[in-house]
């Protein structure tokens, strides 16, 4: 597995902490998923922050704070600075949202924020699209990880543009890449890993399942299968059938 700013993850699974029915269910899902990274956010203090901080630290995984909900580079930069102090990590999942319906990244604001934050010593995990030109600019800015979406956040649609994601993977062989957003089923996660991605980031698909812990385990198994397949030399596709049973020695009946 490619490393994430020098860190090798134990498993290629990042899991969000939002939308779970209870803290106990969230903890069970983390255990079953084997996730090695938890995403977290900063919001206005209303009295519950300390308890949540204690709980996520107890998960024993890397923390990846996000800039979710930020619609400008300035907002995202300030949020990242606050997150670095609060969570005591240089890692930041950089989100600069450009459209309220699709939660699509604003590529211009994203690049602007990434340039400022990389220069300031942050280890930036940009939430981006499969756009190869934007990816190149983010890498030029100093990003050593890219997090293209599979589909819009929370949609559960899976990989909307497999061709684009395959092209992006091939274009940056040395950059760690995570499929972030849009995964709904374990088969989507397996597919992401089969394409050669280094990890996936999940939240809603696990948190909103009827049994989040069981779904977390299903995703963990799928990710393992996909990663193994990716390194096992998948066969090429063909247009026509090829019989698998030998024709030589077939009886004349």
């Amino acid at each position, binding site marked *: 597995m490619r490393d994430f700013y020098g860190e090798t993850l134990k498993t290629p699974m990042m899991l969000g902490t939002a939308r779970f029915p209870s803290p106990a269910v969230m903890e069970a899902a983390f255990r079953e998923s084997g996730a090695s990274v938890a995403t977290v*956010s*900063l*919001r*206005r203090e209303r009295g519950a922050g300390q308890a949540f901080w204690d709980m996520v630290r107890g998960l024993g995984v890397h923390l990846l704070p996000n800039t979710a909900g930020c619609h400008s580079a300035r907002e995202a930069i300030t949020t990242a*600075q606050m997150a670095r102090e609060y969570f005591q990590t240089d890692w930041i999942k950089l989100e600069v949202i450009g459209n309220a319906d699709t939660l699509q990244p604003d590529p211009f604001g994203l690049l602007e924020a990434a340039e400022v934050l990389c220069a300031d010593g942050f280890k930036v995990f940009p939430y981006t699209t499969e756009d190869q030109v934007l990816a190149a600019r983010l890498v030029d800015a100093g990003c050593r990880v890219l997090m293209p979406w599979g589909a819009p956040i929370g949609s559960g649609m899976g990989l909307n543009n497999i061709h684009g994601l395959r092209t992006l993977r091939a274009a940056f062989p040395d950059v760690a890449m995570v499929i972030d957003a849009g995964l709904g089923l374990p088969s989507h996660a397996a597919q992401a890993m089969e394409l050669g991605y280094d990890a996936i980031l999940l939240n809603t698909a696990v948190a909103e399942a009827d049994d989040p812990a069981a779904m977390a385990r299903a995703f963990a198994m799928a990710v393992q299968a996909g990663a193994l397949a990716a390194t096992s030399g998948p066969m090429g596709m063909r247009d026509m059938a090829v019989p698998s049973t030998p024709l030589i020695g077939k009886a004349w009946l």
Partner: protein
Amino acid sequence: MKIEVNGEQRDVAATNVGEALAELGLGEARVATALNGTFVSAAARDGTALSPADRLEVLTAMQGG
């Protein structure tokens, strides 16, 4: 003076960010702060003066995806 704390109007006697947190009962709390959209580190709070109508954001850890 009147300032805005997390979107709500507050009347405070504090003259800097550190005093404001103490006055709001958050002097010991684990929080991150920004004044008028600019990050104020924990070390800089006492040296960051408040002016009327300032917008103070006091943030803490929350669930996120």
